[in-house]
């Protein structure tokens, strides 16, 4: 049994804390708009507040079940190898989001496919770049021309006069 890596036990706790935290945020946001009763019925925050309470309650139960029951202590959630595969997949996606925000979806797609194919598939630079460009062009044809749906564009397209 390998114990290298993040255990499921810790992740269960972390996730319960995460959901609990979201629950608390919900309660807080609901409290901000009022959780009482107005002459015309329950206030805006009434429903969300109690939902938030249930989220916190459920998260607490999950937390306690894990800790008190010592559940999943020996299960590995993520080991080094899986983390690497996961990171190789997920980090480029975050990069994709950032780049698309700044430079538009077409540039973003091209660069993302380029890096993803390089990182995950170890393809040659030129092949990855060619695929990236090909896919971007396909998207342009499909979405802008066939479906008439404009996609996010950035400074590069604006320089060419495409809006």
């Amino acid at each position: 049994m390998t114990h290298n890596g993040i255990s499921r036990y810790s992740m269960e706790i972390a996730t319960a804390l995460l959901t609990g935290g979201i629950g608390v945020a919900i309660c807080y946001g609901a409290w901000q708009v009022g959780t009482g009763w107005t002459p015309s019925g329950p206030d805006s925050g009434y429903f969300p507040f109690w939902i938030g309470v249930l989220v916190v309650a459920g998260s607490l139960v999950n937390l306690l079940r894990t800790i008190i029951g010592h559940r999943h202590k020996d299960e590995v959630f993520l080991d080094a190898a899986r983390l690497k595969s996961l990171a190789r997949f997920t980090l480029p996606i975050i990069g994709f989001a950032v780049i698309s925000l700044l430079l538009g979806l077409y540039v973003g797609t091209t660069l993302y496919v380029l890096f993803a194919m390089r990182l995950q598939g170890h393809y040659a630079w030129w092949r990855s770049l060619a695929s990236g460009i090909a896919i971007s062009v396909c998207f342009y044809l499909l979405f802008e021309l066939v479906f008439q749906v404009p996609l996010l564009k950035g400074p590069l397209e604006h320089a060419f006069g495409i809006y």
Partner: protein
Amino acid sequence: MNNLSLLMDGFATILTWNHLMIMVIGVMLGMLVGVLPGLGAPNGVSLLLPLTFTMDPVSAIILLSCMYWGALFGGSTTSILFNIPGEPSSVATTFDGYPMARNGEATRALTLAFMSAGLGALAGVVMITLLANWVAQFGLKFSSPEYFAVYFLAFCSFIGMSSSAPSKTLVSMMLGLAFATVGMDSVSGGLRLTFGIPDLVKGISFLVAVMGLFGIAELMVTTEEGLSFKGIKSRIRIMDILRTVAELPRYWVSLVRSILIGIWMGITPAGPTAASFMSHGIAKRFSKHPERFGKGEPNGIVSPEAADHSAGTSALLPMLALGVPGSATAAVMMGGLMIWGLTPGPMLFITRPDFVWGLIASMYLGNVVAVILVLATVPLYASILRVPFAIIGPVIVAVIFTGVYQVANSTFDFWLLLFFALLGYLFKKLDYPVAPLVLTMVLGHRAEEAFRQSMVMSDGSLTVFWSNSLVTTIMGLGVLMLVWPLISKVVGLRGWRQRLHRQKPENHKPSTPDSRA
């Protein structure tokens, strides 16, 4: 019978070349989506929804529902040929479908699966045809408290019927409800839970949530396990197909039983996935040769497939007639209906019978079209999976991002997408159910509205939910569902469900090493 004439009207509405073409396109897109990992039925329908905004509702719903069938069939294809379920509801098909294909009978496995699926779906549609009006009439008696009671029943069923811990299901559902309340409050007009972020004024779109939870998160889980798709080559020969079709009546017991299970689990919000597992488990239990299951037993394919598809179709009945979706995809379709300005529920049958019966008629035709198409194009789709994941994965992600952007042209949605991806990843790995989250996000507003109106009607007293026999019955059923795990534990039935669910193999892990060519 009145229903029959309405159905004929429905057929008249949809039998145009335009609609037929839409059916074909829908099925083929659906198959593509069902076959590719990370793009399941809820996700695929979500991706297509923004593109339907310019279509008329009848065409749009035909496209979406045919896509749904196509996705279900596509999911079965990968289950049988690659031992990789393309859909959660096709996991049970891997138990006997893959072994049969491995024994050289791929065509037989595929045909059994598709024909059972087609029959299951048709049975579901017939049931809808017969019951739809009755349920809608019944629903007309509903007022706000009854509606809320039905939603309550749905929520409780999820908690009671889920194989995950009740507290986890509760968290998942409540999060969905909370996400639904973000943005503008429709009653008071004020803003809620926006925390000063202007992009949250429009709320959190369930489409973005689905694409994160079912799309990116699914891909994350798949990538982590380092999947490679080595599948069984399939050459479809007509003679094999026909021979298998002739063989099908032998399994009529399994078919009927599975269809009934599926219809029941589709109408109550248990869903196609639960239906397929339950059906396979029960088939094994009642079989004279249980040891054959898991090795390529035909009943082991017929049962889950028929149940899966009859449940998937039946889930549309409560969605259409009462406005309560019975599955994640039904929830997304309902979201679509609402975006197009149609409110599912009894009033829809009265104000837009052309739409409702057009949809029901299209379900008959769509299934027939789907079965034929799917048998004809299986090798094509199987070959798509041979494209290395390092290429397909990024393309799918790029498609998802463009889909997200089309929802509201908001770049903030990218971050929401990533948030839901993280949440979905954690939830999937830690055995939190994800479908309830989507369901409650779609239902959230209606549930809250029903609650608030009930409160107004009763001047703030919760007793309104016990005020008449109808609402009390429904609430009672809900409470029963909620405490069912406790009851069955006491009575000793709990092990039965766990034993059924324990048959589920680890998500996406092939049961044999990748030495298969």
